[in-house]
């Protein structure tokens, strides 16, 4: 009897926990509420199956547990029943897979007007790059990474010179504007993860990965790394701020470009060299 009680408690308790516990996802801040909806469908279908199987087991134990003189039925197969169950399962699976693939199609289809933003990961720091006035990101190579040029931009590429570079600071995005996030790493695997956006993707050294989203509300969100990247993994945090159009422009105009950054370093180096010469 204890078994029956525990099985029923377990089924009912799991459902109550799901409905009553305070632990649920964070409010969404992107267009990927389709993902949330698919998740809800999956919760319903799987929840019904789980409760049905466990309660059926509880009933079997209650009804068919051993009593003196009992004897089990002898029924090796029941083609019809097995067929119905297999068919029903296939339908349930299709009901989850169909919306899933439909939404995945949206996920992999970047809108043609999407702005491009680059996120670069390194142990254990986030950097960002936005296209400059020309609207194009310049080329880059891990081989070109130096202390002065930490993102490895190509100095001979005109498109790279006006790129906006943010090292270790905040990334700002404009609300309501689709954006393609290009992801790059210069050392190990990382993963650009903002829970409120729902979407995430690994960053792989040697290649550029991407995903897209449209931020749907303004606010400040925390960036976490979601792919183990060494001892500092949990400390690899960053910030994304979703602004309205005016705030975004104000922020953008105060950022420095690649050529400004290079010039600043050169000035600093020249000054250091002059100081050194003067000291001698």
């Amino acid at each position, binding site marked *: 009897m204890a078994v029956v009680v525990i099985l029923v408690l*377990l089924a009912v308790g*799991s459902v109550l926990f799901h409905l009553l*516990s*305070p*632990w*649920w*996802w964070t409010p969404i801040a992107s267009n990927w509420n389709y*993902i949330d909806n*698919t998740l809800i469908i*999956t919760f319903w*279908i*799987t929840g019904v*199956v*789980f409760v049905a*199987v466990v309660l059926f*087991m509880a009933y*079997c*134990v209650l009804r*068919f547990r*051993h009593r003196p003189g*009992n*004897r*089990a039925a*002898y*029924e*090796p*197969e*029941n083609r019809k029943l*097995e067929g119905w169950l297999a068919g029903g399962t*296939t339908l349930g699976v299709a009901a*989850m*897979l169909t919306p*899933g*693939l439909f939404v*995945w199609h949206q*996920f*992999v289809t970047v809108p043609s007007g999407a702005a491009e933003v680059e996120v670069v990961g390194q142990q254990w720091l986030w950097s960002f790059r936005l296209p400059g006035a020309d609207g194009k990101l310049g080329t880059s*190579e*891990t*081989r070109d*990474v130096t202390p002065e040029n930490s993102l490895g931009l190509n100095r001979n590429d005109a498109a790279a010179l006006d790129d906006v570079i943010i090292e270790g600071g905040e990334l700002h995005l404009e609300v309501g504007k689709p954006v393609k996030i290009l992801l790059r790493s210069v*050392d*190990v695997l990382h*993963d650009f993860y903002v*829970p409120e956006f729902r*979407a*995430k*993707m*690994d960053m*792989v*050294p*040697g*290649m550029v990965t991407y995903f897209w989203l449209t931020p749907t509300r303004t606010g400040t969100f925390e960036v976490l790394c*979601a*792919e*183990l*990247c*060494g*001892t500092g993994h*949990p400390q690899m945090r960053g910030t994304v701020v979703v602004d309205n159009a005016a705030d975004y422009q104000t922020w953008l105009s105060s950022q420095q470009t690649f050529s400004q950054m290079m010039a600043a370093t050169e000035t600093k180096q020249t000054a250091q060299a002059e100081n050194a010469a003067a000291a001698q």
Partner: protein
Amino acid sequence: MVDIRSGTGEPIGPAEVEDVELYHPHSWWTRYVFSQDAKIIAIQYASTAIAIGMVALVLSWLMRLQLGFPGAFAFIDADRYYQFITMHGMIMVIYLLTALFLGGFGNYLIPLMLGARDMVFPYANMLSYWLYLLAVLVLVASFFAPGGPTGAGWTLYPPQAVLSGTPGGKDWGIILMLSSLILFIIGFTMGGLNYVVTVLQGRARGMTLMRMPLTVWGIFTATVMALLAFPALFVACVMMLFDRVLGTSFFMPAIVEMGEQLQHGGGSPILFQHLFWFFGHPEVYIVALPAFGIVSDLISTHARKNIFGYRMMVWAIVIIGALSFIVWAHHMYVSGMNPYFGFFFATTTLIIAVPTAIKVYNWVLTLWRGDIHLTLPMLFALAFIVTFVNGGLTGLFLGNVVVDVPLSDTMFVVAHFHMVMGVAPILVIFGAIYHWYPKITGRMLNGLMGHLHFWVTFIGAYLIFFPMHYLGLIGVPRRYYEMGETAFVPASAHTLNEFITIMVLVVGAAQIIFLFNLVWSIRHGREAGGNPWRATTLEWQTPETPPRHGNWGKELPVVYRWAYDYSVPGAPEDFIPQNQPGSAGLAPEGAS
């Protein structure tokens, strides 16, 4: 349609098979240490696996102490935490679960259940165990090596696995880990070939493939899969070892490590992930299929009813085994591989749910109109169904590519795979040990300790892993040494973490009762007799208990019926052993 249930009436003469070809031991050393008897090798495999499993259990305590009470234990720093989770995962998946199901139960049960005297290659079988032991020792050595074991996570993803930002990356840790895996795979291949050939060639007369107990079907299919899947891990390990030791670039692109340009270039980190998961996904079923098989036999025997839909069960095992080779990239939806793979792998992954669901239906339909004896093996089998259904259903979240995106790399994944390939198969292992211990030792395990062990383990494990899914739903990432102050994680989530940690300590402690029971019952357990569960399969029909070297007396058993003749109408007993002549439904005297 072939009738699988009973003989066709053709009399099969008893077979007298000489056992002169077996090497009989002449000394204590060759009998108990360098033994070629599959039963001794099984016990050696199982003892080693349980011993190293206890290390993994302690590691899980340590990692949970950090998650439940961050910073309270000074010696658990970030490096150690990552070493603990890595070794815990690797030990549990490879050195405990794989070794125990195939090396342990496979060795003990295949020859006995099939009516063979031993494995077909006893010497290679012995070597298999000693290589496994060596692999375990190399693994253990990494705890004592400079820099400690690797902390790369059990998936060992390069480049970080071989770089200095990861514990053991530039020390001995990763080298010993890869070497140990290579040794394990060589050892496993020797054992695995043995299991497959024994199933195909060593069966007693009358034991057709479609009369084999599902335990053997599960272990057999899992072994075939392992023989095909482990080579992918083998090459991945060799290549990564070359990258680390010789400076090659199989998995290493151009890298700037902490400001310094490395000499690597042109390699692909994603290639490793494909190789790893080409092994890693079948590995899930390499652990699950033996559990499926064993639990089928436990339910049938203890519900005194034939397994429902035997043929469907066999085909489901085979189909799951085959499909599991084309679903691997569902572990890589957010890895940066071509996103269009998502359509294919989500579809194959969800298709595999259908044969898996059929197995679940057939288990519960076996209970239906049964005569359910709530013995310890049956309790563990029921608990398995609950946890497996729970863990299997959350697999439908993670397999359905778009739903995986927010949940991937969160605690939801940790909760899912622990429920489905940690808790569920381990519950089967416990059920199987309570079931076969009387055959192995001649005595029953103590029931009181057994019930205490069962209830704490089952309820405790469910309370650990069910709420853990919701941490992942909040967005808590896995493999975080500490969450710190994070706006989207409510303070109540921390209370939940404390609760989980306390449950882990309790459930872990319950395993000590089990270990004590294993040792105590060897001397003090109730005498079991040859067939305490009144089971039909051949291992319960041996002339001696425990069976001697060679298993059978002068004559090998002859098989007349399938493994599930329980409660046959008209039969005097509620079970008819497989080696009992006569057609189903009639007492032997009335046959012919």
